[in-house]
């Protein structure tokens, strides 16, 4: 059953076609990687999937609902309720502690719950560092806090933008392991990446070139 379906979407900026008639189908519980060189339309696609932008043409179905024509306010609601975001540059609120950063996500979603936030930090192995400010955490630790923040509201879809772009190999593996765990639990993952290794961890890789889907690779070696 499809959680996300892009139907012939295009995003046109004046003369430039950032996305040109792209279609994509992601099933519930699936782990998909999106690859492509700079300017291939990855970011645009990511913005549209993340409910931060709308396509010029085409339909976006999330959980069966067409979100491509919704007003910004409704898109915010959908993003908050259904999507967990992970960024390349982590993006933590610098003056809040790790646990508080997780709670910010709860705050906008429903109700802040410190115990639950601590538990989420425990899942990413940072229970001990909960009271640290971002400046006191390493890059890998910050990204793990962000993973905890993304999963705290039990989103249907986790959208990760170059999640390991700023991490060393050890931390990359920790984050990928976390993804595997989430996948096993049934979370749908869409990971945008440059890194073939990260892409290979997914079940399926979509390669974008010049705003179109150039090819689709199914990972034969995928281990559940």
């Amino acid at each position: 059953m499809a959680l996300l379906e892009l139907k012939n979407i295009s995003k046109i900026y004046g003369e430039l076609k950032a996305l040109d008639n792209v279609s994509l189908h992601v099933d519930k519980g699936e782990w998909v990687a999106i690859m492509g060189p700079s300017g291939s339309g990855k970011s645009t696609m990511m913005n549209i999937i993340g409910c931060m932008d709308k396509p010029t043409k085409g339909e976006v179905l999330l959980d069966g609902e067409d979100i491509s024509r919704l007003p910004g306010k409704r898109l915010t609601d959908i993003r908050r309720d259904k999507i967990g975001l992970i960024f390349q540059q982590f993006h933590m609120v610098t003056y809040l502690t790790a646990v508080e950063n997780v709670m910010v996500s709860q705050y906008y979603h429903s109700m802040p719950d410190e115990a639950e936030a601590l538990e989420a930090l425990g899942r990413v192995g940072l229970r001990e560092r909960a009271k640290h400010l971002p400046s006191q955490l390493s890059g890998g630790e910050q990204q793990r806090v962000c993973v905890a923040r993304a999963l705290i509201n039990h989103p249907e879809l986790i959208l990760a933008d170059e999640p390991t772009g700023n991490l060393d190999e050890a931390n990359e593996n920790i984050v990928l392991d976390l993804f595997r765990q989430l996948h096993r639990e049934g979370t749908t993952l869409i990971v945008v990446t440059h890194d073939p290794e990260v892409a290979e961890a997914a079940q399926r890789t979509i390669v974008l070139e010049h705003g179109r889907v150039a090819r689709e690779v199914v990972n034969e070696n995928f281990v559940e």
Partner: protein
Amino acid sequence: MTKRRMFLRMVTASLLRRRSRMLIALLSIGIGATILAGMVTIYYDVPRQMRAQMRSYGANMLLMPAEGETLDSERLSAALQKLPEEKLVGASPYRYVRLDMTSRQQSFTTAGTDFEQVQKTSPYFSVEGRYPEAPREILVGKEIAEMIGVKEGSSMELTWQPAAKDASGSAEDDRVPGATLSGSARGFGDAAVYVTATLDDEARIAELTIDASTQTPEYGGRTAEDALFLKQFIGKSLPLSMNEDVDVLSGATVTSTAVVEALNAATAADAAAKPKTTRYEVTGILVTGGEEEGYVFMSTDDLQTLTGEDRLDVAELSVSADEEQLNAYAEALTGDGVQARLVKRVTKSETAVLGKLQALVFLVTVVVLILTMICVSTTMMAVVSERRREIGLRKALGASDNSIRGEFLGEGMFLGLLGGALGAVLGFVFAQVVSVNVFNSSITFQPLLLPVTVLVSMLIAAASCLMPIKRAVAIDPAIVLKGE
């Protein structure tokens, strides 16, 4: 944890953990609130302070006898009862008479008053020496002192000459056979010449005594002794005509004329109306720069002893009140033989000066508040640019525009709260310093000042956040993805 607690936690964390930037905003609000609290305190305290100061420019109300009535000390104190005690700065009674200084053949306007009250109603009076305290002590105006050469510590004799005639026509009625008439008139140097005449059976002058002791002995003074001059009056009927009935004594024209005038005005002698002379000690010379320098001042009691009359011409009141209140008091005081009037020159200028001062304070406050708003707004604007990514992140995490507005408004108002509380305290200190240095008096803390300052500061801080918030809301959440 509730949403509200998380909200407070975020807002306080933002302020406490990002100190340097917020300190600037806090400082500007604090300074704004300080000026606000200080100015408001001064604004409300200035009229009180200034009114007390202004009272040094002299009396602002006059009490006078009503038409056809006379004023005495009893009526005055009855009228003063009608004024609230704390509003009355002072009330100086005045009685003006002319007293003669016989040794100098001069007479001076002399004011009988209450020196203790004078120092309150006319604080600008300056005395070289001291104010009289004991009986028979007087102040002499500088002009007189220079003219007659008296100094602090000198003594001088002053003579009270009772009114020669009270009602017109009485002099004629008194010219009956066998009557003894006495009278006076002003001679040389405005000093009195006294005459006493006894009439014969046909109401003609039988005997004449002249007291010209106030006149220059070698000129006017001779009228009293010159036999030929005196002889020409005997056997004449009153009134006399100069140059027809009598000739002037050569070298004493003025005194001669005074003798004739005194005789024409003479009435049946009255024992109580005899001239009375007392010696006074000068305790100080009065310097005012005004007409008071031409007066002699003695206590009401001394003047009463001298004249035997309890009478007042006017009382000068210094009342600490604004024009409207003064008018009300004047109305309340009028009646029972007295009428009150405002000294418009003083009350009007007082009201005008106070109004202008308050307007100035108000203006300065408004300007400072506008400056505060600009400063806070600029700081918050910088804060928004600095936190673009954080705002983008919050929006990406699902913050609605209203959440963003609420958070910035919350931070702004929290700053307003802290800055306002700080400002209320510092402002009071500021007002106190101004008050002590400018007005020489301290002010009491108004408890209402604290909440009002805090509230205004919060409102100003909130208003300053409007533009920055608008900018924050416009930030695109997509900036958190990639690049940037």
